[in-house]
C-alpha cells in the first residue's frame, strides 16, 4: 500500500514536471490530468499545491507560447485551487503574486476564444473570493473592471448556442462585480464605471435566466451594502423591468419562484431599507415575510436553487436569509415587529433546534453548526432587541434552552452570539424576574467572564449588566458565585469592551443595595480606582465610573462617606467640581448628568458632607451654570442639585449658607428667566417651580458659625 502511494505520488509529481515540457501535447495532457484530479478533491488540491503546481501553472498561463486549449485547462486548475476550503487563500495569493490575475484579465479581452473567456471568468470569480488576490494582484482591478464591464455592456445573444453560453459569461461577469465590492472604496470604484445602469437593465431579463437574475441582484446587494449614497442612487434609477426602479424590482423579486433570486432581492431591499431608501411598508409587508419563509424552508430552497444541488445550497441560502433578516431588523422597532408577526421568532428557534439535531451523532458537521447557530442567535437577538412582546415570544418558543446549551459550546463565536441573544431578551424586567432565574443562565454567564475569548467576556458582561439590575432575584446568587472579584479583575482587561461592560455591571450592582453589599462592591473594585476611572481618557469608562459613584452615594450616608474616603474631602470635591464643570457636549453628557446627581446625592444623604458641598463655590457655580442647559436631562439634574443645596436653610448644619451662595450667584433671576420661556420643556418647568419655592422668602440670617 505504501509502495502504491509512493508510486502515485511520483506520478503526480511527474505531471507537474511535464508542465515545463517543450512538447505542447505533453503539457496539454498533464494539464488535463491535473485538472481532472483537483476538481472536487481537496486532497488532490493539497497534494498538488505541495508539489508547487501554483508556480508551474502560473508559468504556463503567463507564457505567450501557450495554446488556447492548454490555457483553458490551466485556467480551470487555477479556479479549482482557489476554491480549496483550506488552502484557497494561499493558492490565490501565490497565483496573484505570479501574475496570474493579470493574465486572466488579458484572456477576457475581445476576440478571445469564448470558451477561454468563460474559463477565465470562472477562475477570476473563484480567486476574488480571497482578499489576497487583489492585494497581491499588482493593481489589475482597473483592467478587470473594464473587461467585465465590456462583457456586461455587450449583453447576451438570443436563442443560439452562442447566446446560451453568452448568458453564462454574463452571469460570471456580474458575479465578479459582486466579488469586487468588498470595501467602500471598491464600491465607489465599481459604481463610477457606470455598471449600475447595466445591472439594472439585466434585472429586466426574462425569469428564464434565473441564475443571471440572482447574480445581478447579488451584485447590486454587494454594491449597496452599508453605502447610503449608492443606495440613494439605486433608489433613483428607473427601469429594472416591471417599472418602478431598483427598489420596486427588489420588492417584486422578493416573491420570485427561485430561492436565490428571492434571497438576493431581499438583500438588496434590506440594504435600501437600512439606508432609508425604501418605503417602510414594502419592507414590512413583503421583504421581511419573504426572508422568514426562506429561513423556515431551507429544504425547499435547495430544491428551487439554481446552484449546487442538495442540502448544501439550501443550508447556505437559509443562513444567508437569517443574516439578512438580522440585518434588516437592526435598530428598527417597526421592522422587528413585522418580523415577529411573520413568525421570525419561531422560525429562528426552529433553525436552532434543527441545527442541534443535525450536529448530533458521529456524522455531525461542527463547522456547519457553528455557522448556523451564530447566525440564528444574532438574528434572534436583533429581532427581540427593542420589543417586550418579542422577547416574551422568544422565551415561549424555548430560546433560553438553546441559549444555555450554547453558552457551553466549544466555538467562541457560538458562545458570544448566544450571550448577545440572552442580553437582548433579558432587557425585559419581567423576564429577568421570572424566566431568567429558572433558565439556569446565571452560572454559565458568570463562568464566561473568565472565557479565553474577549468577545465572549464582553458579551457575557453586557448580559449580566441587564440580568443584575436591582429588581433581579439573581443578584444575590451572582455575588455568591464570586462575581465581584471576577468583575474587578476584568477592569484591567486588555479589551476595552470587556473593561467597559465589567464597569457597567458594577455600576448596576450598586443600585438599591444594602450597606453590606455596597461595601463589598466598593472594596472589591476600590474607590480610588473608581475615582481615577472617572477622570480617565475613555469616555464610556468615565460615564460608568461616575454613574457607579452616583449609585454608591444614592442610598445612605455610609455610601457618601465611602466616596470621600479615598482622596479626602478637598480632593474629592475638587474632582466633583471638575466633573460638573465639563461643557455640556453630547459625547460627555452622561458623565455630566451623573456628576450633578452625585453632588445632589451627597447633599441629600450626608449630614457630614452637605455643608462642604454647599460651600464649595466652584462646584456650586458649575452646577448653577447648567441650570439653563438646553439638554433637559442636564437642566433637571442641575435643578435637583440646586434644590437640595437650597433646602439646607436655617437650622441645618450649613445654616443657610448654600441658599445664600445660590442667591449671590443669581440663581433666582436665572430661574425667573427660565419660567418665562414658553419653550421650556415640561419636566424642566416642574423642577424650576420646585426650586423657586426656596427663593421666594427672605434671605436667611447669617451663619451662626461665621458670626
Amino acid at each position, binding site marked *: *500500500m505504501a509502495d*502504491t*502511494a509512493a508510486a*502515485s505520488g511520483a506520478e503526480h509529481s511527474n505531471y507537474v514536471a511535464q508542465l515545463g515540457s517543450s512538447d505542447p501535447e505533453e503539457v496539454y495532457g498533464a494539464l*488535463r490530468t491535473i*485538472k*481532472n484530479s483537483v*476538481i*472536487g*478533491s*481537496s*486532497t488532490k488540491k493539497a497534494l498538488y499545491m505541495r508539489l508547487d503546481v501554483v508556480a508551474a501553472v502560473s508559468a504556463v498561463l503567463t507564457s505567450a507560447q501557450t495554446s488556447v486549449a492548454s490555457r483553458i485547462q490551466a485556467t*480551470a486548475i487555477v*479556479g*479549482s485551487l482557489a*476554491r480549496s*476550503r483550506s488552502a484557497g487563500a494561499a493558492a490565490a495569493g501565490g497565483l496573484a503574486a505570479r501574475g496570474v490575475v493579470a493574465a486572466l484579465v488579458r484572456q477576457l479581452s475581445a476576440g478571445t476564444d469564448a470558451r477561454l473567456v468563460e*474559463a477565465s471568468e*470562472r477562475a477570476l470569480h473563484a480567486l476574488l473570493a480571497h482578499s489576497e488576490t487583489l492585494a497581491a494582484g499588482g493593481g489589475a482591478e482597473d483592467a478587470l473592471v473594464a473587461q467585465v464591464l465590456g462583457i456586461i455592456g455587450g449583453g447576451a445573444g*438570443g*436563442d*443560439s*448556442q452562442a*447566446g*446560451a*453560453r453568452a*448568458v*453564462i459569461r454574463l452571469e460570471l461577469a456580474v458575479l465578479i462585480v459582486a466579488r469586487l465590492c468588498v470595501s467602500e472604496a471598491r464600491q465607489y470604484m465599481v459604481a463610477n464605471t457606470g455598471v449600475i445602469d447595466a445591472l439594472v437593465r439585466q434585472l429586466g431579463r*426574462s425569469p*428564464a*435566466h*434565473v*441564475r*443571471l437574475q440572482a447574480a445581478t441582484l447579488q451584485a447590486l446587494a454587494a454594491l449597496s451594502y452599508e453605502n447610503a449614497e449608492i443606495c440613494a442612487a439605486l433608489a433613483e434609477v428607473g427601469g429594472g423591468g416591471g417599472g418602478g426602479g431598483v427598489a420596486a424590482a427588489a420588492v417584486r423579486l422578493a416573491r420570485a419562484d427561485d430561492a436565490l433570486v428571492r434571497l438576493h432581492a431581499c438583500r438588496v431591499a434590506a440594504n435600501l431599507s437600512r439606508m432609508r431608501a425604501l418605503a417602510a411598508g414594502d419592507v414590512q409587508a413583503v421583504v421581511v415575510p419573504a426572508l422568514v419563509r426562506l429561513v423556515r424552508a431551507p429544504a425547499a430552497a435547495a*430544491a428551487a*436553487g*439554481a*446552484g*449546487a*444541488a*442538495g*442540502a*448544501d445550497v439550501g443550508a447556505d441560502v437559509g443562513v444567508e436569509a437569517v443574516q439578512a433578516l438580522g440585518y434588516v431588523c437592526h435598530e428598527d422597532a417597526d421592522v422587528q415587529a413585522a418580523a415577529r408577526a411573520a413568525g421570525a421568532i419561531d422560525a429562528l428557534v426552529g433553525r436552532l433546534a434543527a441545527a442541534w439535531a*443535525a450536529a448530533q451523532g*458521529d*456524522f*455531525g*458537521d*461542527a463547522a*456547519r453548526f457553528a455557522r448556523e447557530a451564530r447566525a440564528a442567535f444574532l438574528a434572534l437577538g436583533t429581532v427581540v432587541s427593542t420589543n417586550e412582546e418579542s422577547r416574551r415570544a422568544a422565551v415561549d418558543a424555548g430560546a433560553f434552552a438553546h441559549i444555555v446549551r450554547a453558552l457551553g459550546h466549544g466555538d467562541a463565536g457560538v458562545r458570544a452570539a448566544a450571550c448577545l441573544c440572552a442580553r437582548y431578551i433579558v432587557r425585559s424586567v419581567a423576564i429577568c424576574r421570572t424566566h431568567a432565574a429558572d433558565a439556569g443562565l446565571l452560572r454559565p454567564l458568570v463562568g464566561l467572564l473568565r472565557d479565553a475569548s474577549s468577545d465572549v467576556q464582553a458579551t457575557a458582561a453586557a448580559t449580566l449588566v441587564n440580568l443584575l439590575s436591582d429588581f433581579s432575584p439573581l443578584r444575590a446568587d451572582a455575588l455568591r458565585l464570586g462575581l465581584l472579584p471576577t468583575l474587578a479583575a476584568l477592569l484591567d482587561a486588555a479589551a476595552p469592551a470587556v473593561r467597559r461592560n465589567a464597569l457597567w455591571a458594577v455600576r448596576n450592582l450598586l443600585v438599591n443595595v444594602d450597606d453590606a453589599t455596597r461595601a463589598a462592591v466598593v472594596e472589591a473594585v476600590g474607590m480610588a480606582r473608581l475615582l481615577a476611572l472617572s477622570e480617565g481618557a475613555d469616555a464610556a469608562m468615565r460615564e460608568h465610573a461616575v454613574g457607579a459613584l452616583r449609585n454608591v452615594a444614592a442610598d445612605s450616608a455610609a455610601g457618601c462617606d465611602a466616596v470621600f474616603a479615598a482622596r479626602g474631602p478637598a480632593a474629592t470635591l475638587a474632582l466633583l467640581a471638575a466633573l460638573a464643570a465639563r461643557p455640556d457636549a453630547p459625547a460627555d453628557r452622561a458623565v455630566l448628568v451623573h456628576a450633578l446627581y452625585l453632588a445632589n446625592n451627597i447633599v441629600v444623604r450626608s449630614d457630614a458632607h452637605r455643608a462642604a458641598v454647599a460651600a464649595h463655590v466652584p462646584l456650586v457655580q458649575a452646577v448653577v451654570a447648567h441650570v439653563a442647559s438646553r439638554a433637559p436631562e442636564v437642566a433637571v439634574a442641575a435643578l435637583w442639585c440646586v434644590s437640595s443645596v437650597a433646602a439646607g436653610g436655617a437650622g441645618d448644619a450649613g445654616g443657610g449658607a448654600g441658599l445664600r451662595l445660590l442667591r449671590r450667584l443669581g440663581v433666582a433671576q436665572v430661574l425667573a428667566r427660565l419660567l418665562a420661556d414658553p419653550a421650556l420643556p415640561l419636566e424642566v418647568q416642574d423642577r424650576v417651580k420646585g426650586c423657586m419655592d426656596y427663593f421666594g422668602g427672605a434671605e436667611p440670617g447669617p451663619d451662626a458659625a461665621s458670626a
Partner: protein
Amino acid sequence: MTASSKQNISLDEWEGKMSEVPIAKSDLNQLIMNYLIIEGYKDAAEKFSEESGLKTKVDLGSIEERMQIRFAVQSGDIKGAIERVNDLNPDILDTDPRLYFHLQQQHLIELIRLGRAEEALEFAQEELAPHGEEHPELLRELEKTMALLAFDFGGSSGGSNGVAVGGLLDFAHRQKTANELNAALLAAHSQPREPKLPALLQLLAWTQEQLDEKATYPRINNIVSAVLSDPAAEHSTPGTGAGASASASTA
C-alpha cells in the same frame, strides 16, 4: 363518507366543466418540449419544435453534451463522465461535494462490480475517505458503500448479506446517479432540474385520491389511455365491488 353521501358527477357534467377550463395549445406544447429537453431527447425536441412552431430559448445543442455525459454514467464510465463534466463546466463538481461524492461512489461500485476489490479499496482510501472527512454528512453513505467490500456480492446485486447495501450494485443506482448529475447540469444552465409532466401526473393521482373520498366522478384509471370512466356505467354493474368495476373500466 359512504357511497350514498358522496357527490355524484356525471360524465357529461365533468366533460362540460373540463371544456370550460382554458388550456392553450402552446402551454401543452411547452410541457412536452420541457419533458423532451430535460430528458434529453434532442432529435425529438428539434422535430417537435419544427412541427409545433414552438421556439425554445434552450440551446438544443447542449442536450447532446448532457446526454453523452448521462450515457457515460449509465454505462458505468464514471471517469469519462467526470472528465466531460469538467470540460463543460469545471465549477459544478468543485461546488457540489455531494454530487462529486456520489459520482466517486458510483465509480467505486463499478470497480466492485468488476471484481477489482484491491483497486476499489485503494480508491476508497485515497479518494472517498478524505472526502467524507471533510463532509461529515456524507460519512453515513460512505459507510454503506464500504460495506460492499465487506460482503461478497459476487458481482450480483442481491444476496442474503445486507440487501439494503447490495441495492447499491443495482443498475438502478447508476440511473439515480445519472439523474442527479443531469439535474445539476440543467441547473447550471438555469433550466428546471426535473420535467413538469411527471409531477403533473403525480398531482393527478393525488387529486383523484382526494376526490375519491368526496365524490363519484369520471376517473382516469389508466394514465396511458387517459379514458374517463363513466360513473353511471360503474354503478349500473350489479353486485360487484370496486375491484370488478375497475377491471371492467380497464377492459
